């Protein structure tokens, strides 16, 4: 593969698949989503936070209870979303990598497979990118990458689960990518609702131009990042806005749009609604346009053990 084409694929894979960031080379995301500041909030309609978040959680099918075999017991409802797996395909774009000044960012056909968990917070993103404009940009040789994050650890795998068993693949620590990879998890619709609930009275709900807006700060490793989420008429998360500090592009405003919600389970329906279409723009440029083909939301068996060499890298 020509070096330039290979580099382009790598850039696209690292930068664009992601639901948010520029991957291994980027730094800690910083504040904030813009319109959620106090000055603008003061002029907006303040909504009931608990009712708004409950409506958003219900719209995604996150809040559930069951009395099967419960006898006289009557448990409250709980957030049932923990693990999830999704498959999609579409286009990613090489962020800021146009071949000519003023030209659109190069596009790559992308297959994506995401496994995620919120307890513990972890995500594995497996992508295969192919240059869709091979004649202009080089041969269309697929690039396959696997990016993983769990809490404070981030690494790339040569194959799923690589580095856990001696002689079975390689796990490469990528600690600098940790926060940006974690952020991908928390700007998914479920992450938004969970994090907004966890933020308690720091979460603000309001209306802007007739739409419901939720603004909240993230915590822990992502402290300092503010997320602004806009709900659609069905109270589903329609848009999520954040701002990151990208070393190549400077402070970058990112917005991710979610639409076509449905239960995308195939033979196992869960009534958990997932977006069927995800579009992400960075600095106004499209970086991701994915159609979700299938989702397993039935808390499938997904684990994210941290390889020893990754733990050691974090210590040093």
């Amino acid at each position, binding site marked *: 593969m020509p070096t330039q084409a290979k580099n382009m694929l790598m850039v696209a894979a690292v930068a664009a698949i992601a639901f948010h960031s520029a991957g291994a080379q980027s730094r800690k995301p910083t504040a904030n989503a813009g319109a959620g500041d106090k000055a603008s909030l003061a002029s907006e309609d303040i909504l009931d936070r608990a009712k708004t978040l409950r409506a958003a959680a219900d719209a995604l099918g996150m809040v559930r209870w069951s009395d099967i075999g419960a006898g006289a017991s009557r*448990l409250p409802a709980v957030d049932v979303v923990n693990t999830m797996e999704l498959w999609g395909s579409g286009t990613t774009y090489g962020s800021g990598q146009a071949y000519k000044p003023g030209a659109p960012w190069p596009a790559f056909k992308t297959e994506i497979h995401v496994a995620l968990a919120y307890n513990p917070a972890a995500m594995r993103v497996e992508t295969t990118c192919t240059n869709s404009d091979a004649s202009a940009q080089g041969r269309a040789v697929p690039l396959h990458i696997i990016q993983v994050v769990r809490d404070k650890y981030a690494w790339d795998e040569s194959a799923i689960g690589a580095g856990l068993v001696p002689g079975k693949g390689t796990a490469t620590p990528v600690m600098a990518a940790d926060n940006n990879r974690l952020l991908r998890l928390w700007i998914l619709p479920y992450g938004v609702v969970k994090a907004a609930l966890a933020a308690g009275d720091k979460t603000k709900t309001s209306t802007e131009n007739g739409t419901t807006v939720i603004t909240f700060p993230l915590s822990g490793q992502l402290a300092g990042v503010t997320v602004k989420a806009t709900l659609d008429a069905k109270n589903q998360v329609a848009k999520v806005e954040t701002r990151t500090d990208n070393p190549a592009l400077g402070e970058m405003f990112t917005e991710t749009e979610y639409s076509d919600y449905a239960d995308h389970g195939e033979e196992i329906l869960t009534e958990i609604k997932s977006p069927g279409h995800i579009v992400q723009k960075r600095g106004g440029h499209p970086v991701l346009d994915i159609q979700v083909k299938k989702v397993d939301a039935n808390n499938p068996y997904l*684990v994210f053990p941290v390889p020893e060499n990754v733990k050691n890298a974090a210590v040093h």
Partner: protein
Amino acid sequence: MMRTFRFSIVIAVAATACLLPAAAMARQFSQVSRTTNAPVAPSGATPRTPDGHPDLSGVWNGLGDNLIGVPNQMANAGIAVETESSTRDVASGARIATFPRGTTNPLNDEQAERAAALMRRMGSNRPVYKPQYWETVKKLDQNANEEDPANNCMPAGIPRAGIPSFVGQSPTYFIFIYPGTGGLIATQTSYRMIPVDGRQHTPLQDLDGTYTGEAIGHWEGDTLVVDTYGFNSSTWFDQIGGYMHSENMHVVERFHRDGNTLTWTATVEDPDVLLEPWTTTPRVALLNPNPEAVLPESLPCSERDLGHLVNKEHH
């Protein structure tokens, strides 16, 4: 949808009909109205046998460890609903958002089944398999209607059987009885005779693998430790999850009595398939307060419903 819904009813009715005595007995303790699934606080003194060890004997079929009902299944999976507004993942300590129910309308069976399937699987305490088995385990769980040995009336095995409903104790051995269980799964009755006379295990290579293996007990202070190996590979080692194992599985169970409660944990080692040992979330059973309590007969388990499957939705 409707066919699935009907199938769910068929399964539930069949399981209940086959194993009604066990289910009915468990219900004796389920009449207590609760809004949590936390273990009951122990009460009373812990009786001791003449040799000074805690007396574990009795009928242990109250509230805690059984497969009947979502509250217990969640507890067994490590989800503790502590109050009407607070839920915690026991293994990780993570808080789980808890809400009032959204409607006074009861869920239909399909809604309740789907919710229950999620709630049973939301805990973080999962065994970590070697990567080459991750897809296998996931597929087994997804296809549990057909793949789960218990759905075919096979023995639950150890440690899936959990806390025995009856414990008989002598100075040199224990008798554990596990009645056939309805509800989430339908398993046949099984029993174990566990020596505590200081003997050693038979060499593994001399054992024919069995469902309950070769169990040897000993006391560590006031805790009964049951060490078991010599299994076949025909069982799953937890209620759900597709948690298969090899013939090299080794299980260490710990039983501790505190007043009228019996707490049980099991640690599973299986270097063939697991990346590391896995320990269950502690489960707590309540002593049947009726001194005349007996275990009624469990009727034979007979599976007749798998042919009606229309999709992979499951319990």
